[in-house]
């Protein structure tokens, strides 16, 4: 297995995270903890129906309630008092539509598109009064037939957006429809290749809507001051994207908005969109006070982006030896009420771990009357892998080839051409599969009855995007590291460690701060597994900049040429004169122009460093009478490129694995025929508890990525992709019944077993 040879001092160690003490003592300030003088509290009126035309919003009764300070609706977006507002009218048609969608998702203008869509908002002296006022707002509407899944969306006469036309590679296909986008990737000649296949397995599978399930509900406080400056304190995965979207929605220049990111209580992709920020800002402008909005758990479930339900058909053809000759995927994803399901990402990932010469992938982004979907950890890849990896397990069974061996036979490697065209740089897919195949877990015997083992592989392409970082050197030889990546799970430290390594410092000699959008260069979201990769890269460059400035400074002190100065093990020295030495700390203490290093990177939008592959091995025990699944043992294997901060690499692997287990077994939105979620609580939306799980074993594989100074690969996402498929395969091997729907809950497993039994009986009878 390829690993990084170079031995590092800081990288690969396990220091206590910089923000740790504040977070174990309750001092860390999260979005809902924030307060400010003169603060009002807001509540939001939300749509009670899934599809309707708004007739009237009457706020008169609510306005009369004592303690109410302001009420806003979508009307308040238009005719802003501000002179330099760029309004929707100034934009081209595409932009205008995009803006309308953004605005309608935070305050509905003409139609109600899903249950829970915001319609109006109230600011009052207390949240109790605000909520009472909300119940006094009268909303009149004319209901329309709701569209609740992709099949309805593609066939129903009920059109959700009259102006919508299907896009193919950005080009519009005329005609009224709920199909927002059709994606296609074609490699080789699949039709012909299937003819030569020894065996072909084709299956249709479905998955239900699931939520990211972060424990901290969304919250935002906004203050619109008299000079037109807007300050927003919120919980977001990206302060800059939140600033840009908020400014966009409000129709003000981005320079007029400052977003102050507070500590964030989980996101997993769900805290990339803005929901409350622009509404709090409108309420603040209308009331003249800062206004705070906090969502309830019910609002989080019903009104923020889940990841969508899907319908998928996957077909794989292989020859006798197990080599995949051709593959085909048909992916229908629910977008929610506005375009943009993760079907594009799903289409990239569906066959990503394999070298297959002939591929056809069709992806469909279908508008439905549900909350707009948002990213959820490797968006789209998990559903796609559930389809592909269960089909591959069936191929392995039919050809009587070990499932790990079959994957190895077909593994993608450097130079493999993907379905979407490009070839892979250095990747760790083969190493991940080999590690699974050679692992003690995979080779341990299964002795108990009703126990089965399954494996699966998953891919997430990872992104790079923009990050900025500055480092100021202090007189005592420590550094202050300023960054713009909100820290969801230890990235302050994984970034600081990369700077520390360059400058020969200890992790605790770096003081990292995540700052507001006025205080650092643009930095993209904490998402796409990019933070340790790209912001870490920016920190590395800032540290190099600091080092070079110090070299110039010491060269000046010694009056020698900077080219003759070297820095090693915390000491600057002259290449010629061995007498000339100065420690980092001593040089830092010397007076002179303050040393400030800058790092600023723009890396690939997709496929950064070749992405990350991860795999799962899972043993389950099925109660054949109740269909209850017990996860006996679970191992997650992932390529981290180079694990900067192993404790938190393991943490990502364990967290992603468990979200995948929840998705596999019990998590789903139960929806009524009129589009209402019936289980919008943490009691009935069954995320795994500590008692549902074994310890989650981790094996970190290190195949350094091309380009990154330390070979890092983001590890935030790929780990959630394979668990549902691995669990499905394990359930099959425990019960003899294939599962074609997520979640695989006790009722469906029991039914599967009963049907299977009666099939056997029938076949014996004939």
């Amino acid at each position: 297995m390829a690993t990084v040879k170079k031995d590092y001092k800081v990288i690969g160690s396990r220091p206590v995270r910089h923000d740790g003490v504040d977070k174990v003592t309750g001092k860390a300030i999260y979005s809902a903890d924030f307060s400010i003088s003169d603060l009002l509290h807001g509540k939001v009126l939300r749509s009670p129906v899934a599809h309707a035309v708004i007739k009237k919003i009457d706020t008169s009764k609510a306005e009369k309630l004592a303690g109410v300070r302001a009420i806003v609706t979508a009307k308040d977006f238009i005719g802003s008092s501000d002179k330099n507002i760029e309004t929707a009218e100034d934009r081209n048609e595409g932009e205008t539509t995009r803006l309308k969608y953004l605005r309608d998702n935070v305050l509905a203008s003409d139609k109600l598109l899903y249950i829970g869509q915001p319609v109006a908002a109230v600011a009052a002296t207390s949240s109790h009064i605000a909520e009472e006022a909300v119940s006094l707002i009268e909303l009149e509407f004319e209901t329309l037939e709701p569209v609740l899944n992709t099949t309805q969306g593609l066939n129903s006469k009920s059109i959700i957006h009259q102006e919508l036309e299907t896009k193919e590679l950005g080009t519009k296909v005329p005609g009224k429809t709920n199909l927002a986008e059709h994606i296609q990737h074609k490699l080789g000649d699949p039709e012909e290749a299937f003819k030569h296949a020894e065996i072909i397995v084709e299956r249709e599978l479905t998955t239900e809507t699931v939520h990211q399930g972060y424990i901290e509900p969304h919250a935002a406080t906004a203050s619109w001051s008299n000079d037109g400056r807007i300050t927003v304190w919120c919980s977001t995965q990206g302060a800059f994207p939140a600033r840009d979207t908020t400014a966009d929605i409000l129709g003000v220049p981005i320079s007029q908005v400052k977003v102050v990111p507070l500590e964030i209580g989980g996101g997993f992709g769900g805290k990339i969109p803005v929901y409350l920020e622009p509404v709090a800002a409108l309420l603040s402008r209308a009331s003249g006070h800062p206004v705070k909005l906090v969502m309830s758990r019910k609002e989080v479930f019903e009104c923020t982006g889940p990841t969508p339900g899907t319908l998928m058909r996957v077909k794989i053809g292989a020859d006798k030896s197990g080599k995949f000759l051709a593959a085909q995927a048909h992916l229908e994803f629910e977008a929610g009420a506005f375009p943009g399901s993760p079907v594009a990402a799903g289409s990239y990932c569906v066959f990503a771990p394999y070298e297959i010469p002939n591929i056809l992938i069709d992806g469909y982004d279908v508008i439905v009357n549900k909350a707009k979907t948002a990213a959820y950890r490797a968006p789209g890849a998990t559903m796609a892998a559930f389809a592909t990896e269960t089909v591959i397990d069936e191929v392995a069974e039919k050809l009587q080839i070990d499932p790990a061996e079959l994957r190895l036979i077909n593994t993608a490697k450097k130079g493999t051409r993907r379905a979407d065209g490009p070839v892979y740089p250095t990747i760790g897919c083969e190493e991940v599969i080999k590690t699974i195949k050679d692992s003690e877990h995979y080779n341990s015997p299964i002795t108990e009855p009703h126990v089965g083992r399954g494996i699966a592989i998953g891919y997430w392409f990872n992104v790079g995007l923009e990050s900025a970082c500055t480092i100021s050197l202090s007189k005592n030889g420590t550094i202050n590291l300023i960054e713009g990546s909100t820290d969801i799970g230890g990235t302050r430290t994984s970034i600081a460690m990369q700077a520390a390594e360059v400058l020969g410092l200890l992790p605790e000699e770096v003081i990292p701060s995540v700052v507001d959008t006025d205080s650092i260069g643009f930095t993209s979201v904490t998402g796409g597994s990019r933070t340790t990769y790209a912001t870490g890269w920016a920190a590395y460059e800032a540290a190099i900049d600091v080092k070079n400035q110090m070299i110039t400074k010491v060269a000046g002190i010694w009056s020698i040429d900077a080219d003759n100065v070297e820095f090693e093990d915390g000491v600057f020295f002259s290449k010629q004169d061995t007498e000339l030495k100065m420690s980092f700390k001593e040089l830092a203490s010397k007076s002179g122009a303050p040393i400030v290093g800058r790092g600023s990177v723009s890396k690939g939008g997709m496929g950064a460093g070749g992405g990350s592959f991860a795999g799962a091995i899972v043993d389950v025990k099925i109660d054949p009478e109740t269909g209850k699944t017990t996860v006996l043992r679970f191992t997650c294997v992932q390529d981290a490129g180079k694990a900067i901060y192993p404790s938190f690499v393991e943490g990502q692997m364990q967290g992603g694995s468990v979200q995948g287990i929840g998705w596999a077994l019990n998590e789903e939105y139960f929806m009524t025929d009129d589009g209402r979620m019936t289980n919008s609580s943490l009691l009935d939306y069954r995320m795994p508890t500590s008692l549902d799980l074994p310890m989650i074993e981790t094996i970190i594989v290190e195949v350094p990525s091309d380009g990154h100074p330390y070979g890092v690969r983001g590890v935030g996402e790929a780990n959630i992709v394979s668990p549902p498929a691995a669990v499905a395969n394990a359930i099959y091997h425990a019960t003899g019944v294939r599962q074609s729907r997520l979640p695989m809950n006790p009722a469906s497993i029991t039914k599967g077993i009963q049907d299977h039994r009666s099939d056997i009986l029938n076949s014996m009878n004939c």
Partner: protein
Amino acid sequence: MLQVFIPSLMRKLTNDKHVVEINATSITELINKLDIEYPGMKEQLTEGNLIKDGLSVVINDEISNNPLLEQLKDGFEIHFVPTIGGGNY
């Protein structure tokens, strides 16, 4: 020469050619030359001299953040792929 990969949904314009070879040093030059050889390509790929919304340019193995500024070298692979929707990152 650049290897330009034509997306399946545009191959009607290249009478089903999957890959075409073009000599160019920038994406703009590339698209103009493509349009001469395969009329309609420019309209498919651009809007107001910018790459269309919903379309991304892959240069070799990574999506480029600002393709129009990229310096293209001999032997590069160029792909036009659908943009990832859904605020995925």
